[in-house]
């Protein structure tokens, strides 16, 4: 039950938080920092909607004790566009990550409950693998449940975003 102060960097901002030993990262993000974009789906690691980046790697915040990630860097769905803006200096602040825009256009969002997790996993894939194949996309999203879309539109959104992001950097092609 021990409570103590811990440091955590969330979406580029340093926080000092009073956290109990058993608090999960999901709980701290939602209930202390009021970042409600990250969803609480199953709370047992089965659905993927609580996915955030921990030092850039997609991780399930519901099965991660906050104290075990003391001092590390977290990006949530609220910080994805900000991260993207910082990633591409000179282009100015971004209102959305290209995958967010693509998800809306491709009909990849219905009830939207799975979307934050899908986008965090998809954006990490696009960062590491600029032109992912269909199998790579399916693999990257394999820990994410969607009860609405049937997945096709979500996979398509990642492909759409990949295509646009590729066009934006022709020198790398």
């Amino acid at each position, binding site marked *: 039950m021990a409570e103590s102060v811990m440091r955590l960097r969330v979406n580029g901002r340093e926080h000092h938080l009073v956290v109990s030993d058993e608090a999960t990262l999901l709980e701290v993000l939602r209930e202390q920092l009021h970042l409600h974009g990250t969803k609480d789906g199953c709370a047992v*690691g089965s659905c993927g909607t609580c996915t955030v980046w921990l030092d850039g790697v997609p991780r399930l915040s519901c099965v991660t004790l906050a104290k075990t990630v003391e001092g590390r860097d977290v990006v949530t769905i609220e910080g994805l566009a900000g991260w993207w803006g910082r990633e591409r200096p000179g282009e100015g602040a971004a209102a959305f990550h290209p995958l967010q825009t693509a998800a809306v256009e491709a009909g990849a969002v219905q009830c939207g409950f799975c979307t934050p997790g899908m986008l965090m996993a998809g954006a990490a894939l696009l960062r590491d693998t600029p032109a992912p194949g269909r199998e790579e996309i399916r693999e990257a999203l394999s820990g994410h449940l969607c009860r609405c879309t049937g997945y096709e539109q979500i996979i398509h959104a990642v492909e759409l975003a990949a295509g646009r992001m590729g066009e934006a950097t022709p020198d790398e092609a």
Partner: protein
Amino acid sequence: MMPLRPLSLTTPSRPEETVAALAAEGAAVLAGGSDLIPGLAWEIPTCDTLVSLAGLDALRRIETEEDGRLRIGAMATLADIVRHPLIRVGYPALADAAQAVGSPELRAQGTLGGNVCLGTRCRFRNQPPLWREALAPCWQSGGEVCHAAPAKETCVAILSGDTVPALVALRAEAEIWGRRPRRLPIEEIYTGDGTHHLHIAPGEFLAALRLPAAPPRAAFRKWRTRASIDFPEANAAVSAVWRDGAWREPVVVVSAVGPAPIRVQAAESLLDGSAWSEERILAAGDLARRAVHPYDNGQLNVAGRQIAVRGLVVRALGDMEMERREPVL
């Protein structure tokens, strides 16, 4: 959101402190937490102090020892294992087994030690508390009945770690740290009782797995409901050495059908000392099927899991024989 019940967490930075903390009543090892934390969310484990191994840097390393053995620290993540060049090349069956666990997020968090020590699972037990309330407490919950096997006096929950059969087939050795550090073949850490399924005493923990310098060839196969994420309904690994025109020293091991991995010795005898014809492979699969007696505590039914065992062993043996005939390099 339901918070977890109050717990205390400690992260010692020296092995002696870890041993002392783990010797206390109610202490449990916290590795990646991808099994323990969901368990706590459903009020399954009874521990009240979590002793994290994350402060012991040596436990994260994967390195070759002086005698050529590969030493994998218990805190190496499954993702570390999947991408490690020495493992991909020298011990690909282990990389395949690690890749078969959960999702990318779970592999980034889950460790090899946690996979080997994974709590046993049962369809009647691994459920939310409200669901469990409808049933009398079972052996694991301090009761006196097993809902999967009412005639049994012990718990028959399923050992569900996917890397276990691969490690057995690769003849891995477990290194346990405690007051008296010891090493033993990995198979010997499993008791066969679903409630206390590990021969790891309070005050002890798994520190590393050591793999032979010249490993046998091996193959791993898994069967599950959804290919994307689920726990195994059955898994299997086989290994053997190809020498003087024949397979030698075969190991056939099936897991996720009981509280401990099962060596299929009858199949091993059948496979020793020859190349593997189709008939021989099918016969070995039949022997494996007859060697397992799963209870009705998985997600899929008993007969299906038994038939799956046959298929898994046949395919794993087939993988090895095909690879020998037409090496992919």
